[in-house]
């Protein structure tokens, strides 16, 4: 009898049960990762505002390649981006900054401005957040370069030995499915 009882326990191994599982539900999979990281930063001193001839540079600009959206998957999964730009200015000058998002054909797909106010002379700090969503800004994923153009307000005084610091980060909301 004991043998039979024991064998029945062992045989359970081969006649074990399982509740219904539904592996098809993996088709419903979706995840919403948020990737956050630095983009660019800059330090502008008086030397950046004087050219090699000793002239005042009222306009300065630079271009940054940005290849995150070269990847088709990244473009397809994109939902929203938040670009954070923060500044700290000790110049008693205004820096009118334009940020252009440029596509492969050098066309502007989005643009924003950052109006850095002059120091008072206390250092002026500020932060702007720019939002781009897939529905409202469908061309945002086509940008491949960022062009930064800064117009420095001229004043009667010589360029001061001061400092403008700008930093930026991006927060990209994705949907993977």
């Amino acid at each position, binding site marked *: 009898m004991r043998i039979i009882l024991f064998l029945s326990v062992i045989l359970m191994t081969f006649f074990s049960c399982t509740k219904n599982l539904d592996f098809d539900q993996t088709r419903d999979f979706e995840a919403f990762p948020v990737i956050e*990281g*630095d983009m660019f930063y*800059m*330090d502008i001193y008086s030397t950046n505002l004087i050219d090699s001839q000793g002239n005042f540079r009222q306009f300065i600009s630079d271009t*940054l*390649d940005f290849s995150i959206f070269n990847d088709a998957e990244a473009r397809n999964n994109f939902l929203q981006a938040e670009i954070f730009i923060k500044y700290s200015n000790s110049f008693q000058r205004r820096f009118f900054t334009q940020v252009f998002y440029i596509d492969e054909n050098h066309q502007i797909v989005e643009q924003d401005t950052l109006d850095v106010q002059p120091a008072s002379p206390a250092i002026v700090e500020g932060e702007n957040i720019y939002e781009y969503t897939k529905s409202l800004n469908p061309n945002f994923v086509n940008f491949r370069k960022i062009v930064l153009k800064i117009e420095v307000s001229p004043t009667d005084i010589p360029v001061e030995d001061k400092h403008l610091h700008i930093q930026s980060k991006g927060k990209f909301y994705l949907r993977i499915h």
Partner: protein
Amino acid sequence: MKKIAIVILLLISYKGFGQFHVLEYDFNSYAQSLQFNPGTNYPYEKLFSLPLLGQTYVFGGNTGFSLADLFSEGGNYNEKLTRVASNLKNTDFVNAHYHQEIFTYGWTDDLERFKYFGMYWEFDHFNTIPGSFVRLGLEGNSPHLFDIYDARYISTRSEFVQTMYYGMNKQANWQLNVGYRIKLYSGIANAQSINNQGTFYTTEGQNNYYEHHLENVNLGFYSSSFDENAEISDIINKFLFSKNFGPGLDLGLTYKYTDRLQLSAAVLDLGFIYYTSNIRNYTVKGSYVYEGANIQFPENSFIDYWKDIKDSFNEQIQVGENKKNYISWRPTSVYVGLKYGLEDLKHPECKDFLNLKDEYTSFLGFTGFYQYRPFKSVYWGTSLYYQKKWSKYFQTKFNLTADNFGFASVGAAMVLNIKRLQLYLAADNLIGLSDLSASKKQSVSLGLNIIKFK
């Protein structure tokens, strides 16, 4: 069909090293018990395993979640996935093991030493499922911005090994039994990424919002004899003429402290395999700090910031590929045991009938298991058991086990001797059998051997 699929999933998706043979250790009624302690108190004079039937053992386990946690019917799949991911620890792992005895032959020589030789196949697969990396993949870095991601938690190994062995078991005196087993491993295939190092983390930045660090990264992926275009003849060839060899050793002893109390210990798979065949290795080494592009507004020149960042990254994080031979250490296991005789033999004249080397018909015991894992955790297990010798023909063992997979799994094993034929059946985590999908581990073992008692 669904059950078969689940069992196969348990066994294939759960990957591992050697196992905690909770039911087989210190169960010397089982003719193959020398596999788990070469120094056990072995009662047989002769052993011959039926080809491919001497011992078959399959195990699947997952410390992190069960299939039902993810795939139970009803409910929102993504909520289930999020719940599973949020509960995962960095030390969680999945583990599968298959052991197939090909043959064993053993005999007692004139000096009362039991000598034996044989061969077995073993497939192990193991991989970690570190919770922090899973959450990073599902949720991105933003919700966990200042977490530290440690590459030591990324670890995986798959290995198919053929082992030939020769062993000896001897009763040194009335108190002490000792034994050893020398092994020759033959690696059929191996792929592993273990002992990885390095961290990824983010801190508040000086120049920009953050500094993203890859620090002292040292990752390696090694493989041998994996060929996606291999045909059956190639695979057979690998079994017969493998070029990957290594030595191994098992040691064990059993010591009778008193008439009732015995202690035992075993160290299994002290050894390595030297892989030389069809090697493909990849390495990643270096440190890198990223804080965005430093825009400089040059007056007359162009700076390709993105290219500079990529070049700097490639310079500091070096990706290499090589075909160097490598060593894969076997997963060494350590067992300790304590066994206490409970019931005296009521009728000593039955000793022959029961064919006992001792005077007890039932035992209480404890087994401890430890196995080194190449990440920040160990594979461990402890078990309490009750063993009963009902007769010469029928003996049983019941275990209550706590290990990485859970704290109270019940297992049972039986030995049935029909003349010279011995049948062994065992299953761990019997409660899990009522619903395999909710189980975090299962193991089944069976053996068919021809024996002759001393």
